[in-house]
């Protein structure tokens, strides 16, 4: 009767079932917050789900992921119901009754300071999502401390801002995010190394949550106004119905609010929804802990739900709808689609990923590991280089085809790793090193082949390897220093409602108000060039053209194959140097401008 068997039933109707999860998690316990009220005033976590409750389903999902222990925190009024709901559960569950958020925080602090190996997860006890979405956070060793993140348009969530895979700002009932990029989907994993910080943050938040500072209360009122306006707009605009009212904040918080929230009239239903949202908002221990950790400077990564299902039902009707919706989803297909990397280039996205994901699924069901696929890929790359080295037309064509096969298998290994959630540091290193190996082996093969054809191109090959390595070094160094800038940026104290970007924006507005006659200060030239450069991204297709100019790996392998098969190795190197040189000028100009602004 567990939630897991439900998932299996759903999946068996689909063409293929998701691969079994391998390896365990490094999580010693999950803290489930069954503290949020449903619309009828009961516990949202105890809303019915098939033959049990949402909370019961979640406890089973967590046990299935290999987490040894769950701790359910609930309010005293719901304690007996929670006990009854979890009675038949075979998982190890402890139930703690807590009267308020400060008491929740105290329990978390004690767990953080407790004995045991592994980290802690703090999450909402009323979330309905795929087990695979939870696995993405709990079982991925690359996310040490991190959150489940996803779409901004979800119900009952707070937003976050992230840069370079790191949470830079998070919202809570009392905290605002300037320019959010995503949302916190109610699950926070804290690695053992950050548990001390978690405990400290929890204790520091206790007195503040018990007696919120004026700035916090002000922020909550501002949020109420925003929610009221977004409900109002949603009601006006039929097309915006998908925007799940209650979560939406206006995208740019700098924009002046044209309507006064105090004068806006909502329908009875919307008014009730708003009342509920405002009443439930302060009761969000998980969001407060996340803001606390962000403000403490902890490195918090993200695991995105992508196209997997996630919702927080507020009523039995919501829960029934969620049951229906999750049953309609082909979990395996969604998981497979989510395994495709989001930031790939044009060639990879449109010419390789559409079919490589099915090879990844085949490999998963055959039990191949990503590292095996990586090794096969470099072996095919070696064969391609040998074929190129013949210098014959058939050899060049065979080599071109083999190189594409090697590139496809290279995409497969990453997708297989994400699909089966088998990540390893060795795998990541091998994948990176073998990518370079294949490319430079192809250079060597082509240069040998050209010598066979009495048209030596070793100098061009040397130039190509120099250009490509220097281009990569620029990518690595620029990325590395940007990371350092993020790590060194000072976070405002937890008492402050606005994040640093929000505070800076407010300061800018205030200077304009103070000196209304002065024109706003002109931005420096590099900043203006960069904003103009980003504006043209809105033209359809421009984003892809820019990606192609940067000459990413898919384009490079395609260029090698095509030119070698049709022309000669000399053509290949000339194209690589010309396109690579253009890419170098393009990206370096962008980076210099960004360094100078």
């Amino acid at each position, binding site marked *: 009767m567990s939630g897991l068997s439900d998932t299996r039933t759903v999946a068996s109707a689909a063409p293929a079932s998701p691969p079994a999860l391998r390896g365990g998690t*490094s999580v010693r316990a999950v803290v489930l917050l069954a503290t949020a009220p449903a619309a009828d005033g009961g516990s949202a976590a105890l809303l019915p789900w098939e033959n049990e409750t949402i909370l019961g389903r979640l406890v089973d999902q967590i046990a299935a992921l290999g987490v040894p222990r769950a701790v359910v925190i609930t309010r005293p009024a719901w304690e007996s119901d929670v006990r009854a709901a979890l009675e038949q559960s075979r998982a190890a569950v402890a139930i703690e009754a807590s009267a308020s958020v400060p008491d929740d925080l105290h329990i978390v602090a004690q767990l953080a300071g407790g004995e045991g190996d592994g980290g802690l997860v703090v999450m909402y006890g009323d979330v309905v999502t795929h087990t695979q979405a939870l696995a993405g956070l709990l079982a991925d*060793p*690359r996310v*040490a*401390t991190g959150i489940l993140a996803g779409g901004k348009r979800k119900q009952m969530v707070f937003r976050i801002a992230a840069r370079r*895979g790191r949470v830079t700002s998070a919202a809570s009932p009392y905290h605002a995010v300037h320019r959010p990029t995503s949302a916190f989907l109610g699950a926070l994993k804290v690695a*053992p*190394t950050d548990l*001390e*910080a978690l405990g400290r943050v929890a204790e520091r938040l206790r007195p503040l949550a018990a007696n919120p500072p004026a700035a916090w209360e002000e922020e909550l009122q501002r949020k109420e106004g925003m929610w009221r306006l977004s409900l109002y707009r949603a009601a006006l605009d039929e097309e915006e119905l998908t925007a799940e009212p209650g979560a939406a904040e206006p995208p740019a918080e700098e924009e002046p609010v044209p309507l006064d929230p105090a004068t806006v009239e909502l329908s009875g239903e919307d008014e009730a929804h708003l009342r509920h949202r405002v009443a439930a908002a302060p009761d969000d221990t998980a969001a407060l802990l996340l803001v606390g950790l962000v*403000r*403490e*400077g*902890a*490195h918090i*990564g993200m695991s995105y739900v992508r196209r997997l299902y996630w919702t927080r039902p507020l009523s039995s009707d919501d829960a029934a709808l969620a049951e229906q919706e999750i049953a309609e989803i082909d979990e395996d297909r969604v998981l497979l689609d989510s395994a495709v990397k989001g*930031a790939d280039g044009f060639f990879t996205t449109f010419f390789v990923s559409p079919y490589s994901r099915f090879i990844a699924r085949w490999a998963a069901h055959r039990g191949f590991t990503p590292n095996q696929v990586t090794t096969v890929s470099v072996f095919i790359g070696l064969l391609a280089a040998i074929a190129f080295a013949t210098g014959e037309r058939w050899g060049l064509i065979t080599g071109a085809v083999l190189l594409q096969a090697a590139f496809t298998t290279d995409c497969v290994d990453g997708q297989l790793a994400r699909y089966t959630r088998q990540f390893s*540091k060795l795998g*990541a*290193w091998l994948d*990176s*090193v073998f*990518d*370079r190996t294949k490319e*430079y082996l192809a250079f060597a093969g082509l*240069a040998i082949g050209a*010598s066979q054809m009495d048209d*030596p191109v*070793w*100098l061009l*090959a*040397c*130039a190509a*390897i*120099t*250009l490509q*390595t*220097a281009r990569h*070094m*620029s*990518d*690595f*160094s620029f*990325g*590395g*220093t940007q*990371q*350092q800038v993020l790590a060194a940026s*000072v*976070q*405002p*104290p*937890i*008492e*402050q409602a606005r994040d640093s970007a929000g505070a800076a924006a407010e300061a800018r507005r205030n200077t304009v108000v103070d000196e209304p006659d002065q024109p706003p200060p002109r931005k420096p030239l590099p900043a203006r060039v960069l904003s103009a450069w980003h504006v043209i991204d809105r033209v359809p297709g421009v984003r892809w053209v*820019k990606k192609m100019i940067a000459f990413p*790996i898919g384009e490079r392998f395609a260029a090698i194959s095509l030119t070698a098969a049709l022309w000669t190795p000399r053509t290949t190197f000339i194209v690589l140097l010309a396109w690579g040189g253009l890419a170098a000028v393009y*990206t*370096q100009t962008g*980076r210099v401008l960004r360094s100078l602004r």
Partner: protein
Amino acid sequence: MSAQAPALRVAVVPARPDPIPVYRDDGPLALALGRALGPVVKLPAPLLIVLGLLALVAAIVIGGPDTSLGVAGAVIAWVVLTLGIASGTPPRPRIRWAEPPLMRATEYTALIWIAALEGPDAYPAAFALLAALTFRHYDLVYRLRHRGVVPARWVSRLSGGWDLRLIVAFVLLAAGALPAGYFVAAGVLGVAFVGEAVYGWLAVGRVQRPLEYEDEEDEGQ
């Protein structure tokens, strides 16, 4: 921000080495030059490296493969001097990312040019040497990224750093030991780099570190 006290900051993981000095791959001579002259010269490091690279490019354009050994030696000495001083000038945080790519471009171009002075027959050997060196330079990045460590000290000493490599390459040219010298260097270094990397993975410590960034290539957005 304002006048409120800054939030407490804690080191959550053992400090990761600063990547830029690791990527530069300086040898003992370069570091000594940087310590001695860097604080005096004070020019931005990327500018110094460009000065070295420009001299090299000028020599290639003007003299090409016919440059005399003496002039070539002076150009290599200038390159070692400028890039070496760049290792010790006061840091410019906003532009220091430009140092490693410029250094690799300079080092590899110089190695190719030294081969060119020997003659076109030395190009395959230059390619082999560059291939071995790229393994080290990518490994410096990927090991730091995925495990937060740098290669063992003995292998870095053996590699010499870019400075000693350039000097040894020039000595090989002057001694008439090219292209065989490049092939031998490529073989020795290649075996050492790959062997030490594999050994490093076999003896891997289990340190949990956060993922720095997921994307393989930063495409300048």
